[in-house]
């Protein structure tokens, strides 16, 4: 039980990494998703390549690339910003794919209605299609956010002081190496349960506001 307090002190950092990484992805995913539906083949190809590379390379490799790769030469990068940048980049790709799913789920009649009302293409996207895409995307985005929270444990490898970082230092200080890691595992499980519950209730409320 002595381990719980120190390990819990890593929770804010884990949440910070998750929220900021997700926020970067939520914004950065929009242009990637739109490029994926571009009329120009080359634009589609570029966004597809970016998405596949971001998703195809393991998160820990991205973190190392940002922290050791870029941070080693001219610029000095601290662990926390490096982790946020890496998780943000990866989130862009995953959320772009989630938005793409949402975009194709919005009924075609919604676009046609926009045309009939004389809205510009940009206005159709921003006022009619976009809000519905966001609502469609909630369940998948929530699942992704929960996965991201667990992935933030990787930031411990570059020394960001999150849950696993404290568990690791507790394990190395005491003779009992097992309990601290089990406490860390429990902390992640306890954190993800309310997240899943919250996402389901938000989804239920917003689902009402989608035209079918």
């Amino acid at each position: 039980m002595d381990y719980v307090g120190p390990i819990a002190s890593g929770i804010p950092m884990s949440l910070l990494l998750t929220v900021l990484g997700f926020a970067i992805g939520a914004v950065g995913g929009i242009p990637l998703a739109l490029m994926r539906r571009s009329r120009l083949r080359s634009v589609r190809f570029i966004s597809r390549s970016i998405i596949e590379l971001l998703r195809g390379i393991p998160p820990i490799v991205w973190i190392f690339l940002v922290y050791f790769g870029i941070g080693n030469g001219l610029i000095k990068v601290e662990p926390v910003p490096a982790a946020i940048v890496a998780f943000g980049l990866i989130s862009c790709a995953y959320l772009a794919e989630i938005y793409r799913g949402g975009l194709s789920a919005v009924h075609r009649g919604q676009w046609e209605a926009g045309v009939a009302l004389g809205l510009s293409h940009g206005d159709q996207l921003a006022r009619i299609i976009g809000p519905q895409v966001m609502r469609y995307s909630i369940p998948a985005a929530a699942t992704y956010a929960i996965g991201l929270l667990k992935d933030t444990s990787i930031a411990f490898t570059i020394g960001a002081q999150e849950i696993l970082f404290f568990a690791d230092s507790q394990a190395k200080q005491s003779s009992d190496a097992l309990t601290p890691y089990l406490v860390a595992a429990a902390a992640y499980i306890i954190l993800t349960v309310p997240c899943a519950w919250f996402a389901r209730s938000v989804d239920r409320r917003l689902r009402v506001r989608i035209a079918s």
Partner: protein
Amino acid sequence: MTVLQDWLGFLPQLASGLWVSVVVCLAAIVVGLPLGLALALGSSAGSRALRWPAIAVVEIGRGAPALVVLQVFYFGLPSAGLTLSSTMAACLALALTTAAYTSEIIRGGLQAVPRGELEATEALGMSRPDALRFVVIPQGIRVAIPPLMGFGVLIFQATSLAYTIALPELLGRAYSIGSSTFQYLSVLALAGLMYAAVTIPASLLTDRVERRMSRHLA
């Protein structure tokens, strides 16, 4: 040019690291997948004594990050009197994660088999194990194949986490080259591309299989 020359120099070491990654990934799948099927059957079993432990294993295996599970197996278990080599710890930890995730995928597949088929097996007087073995599992697994392939790609990526327990896989090799040559960016970029060279074709194949399978669904 110099980058390419560097890369040629790094390649032999990284390639042997990639081999370790592939082997650990395959071992995790070979051990984890049957366990996942067992957990899928267990967590949808009628008996509570069977269902609750299976659900607990699944929820813990999916709720705890793979990295934490790895630390538990490699650094934690010796405190409980069980010392594992880094290869063994990596295989077992990733197998547990595989079992937990694939059990949910397989369960979804099994549930997709229409109820009428089960009723038909009853009408034919088949025993419950026979119904599972000949009717439900063959069809359910087919539905589960594309998501299982997708998960395979993820678990291959997750082998990179075993770098933290001193397993000489691809990332571990890249990092040690980086720390001796200080060419982190170059060697990590090459390692990243090598991961992508496996995962991107695998994802494309998964997409294709998924489209192919959905052709036969109503």
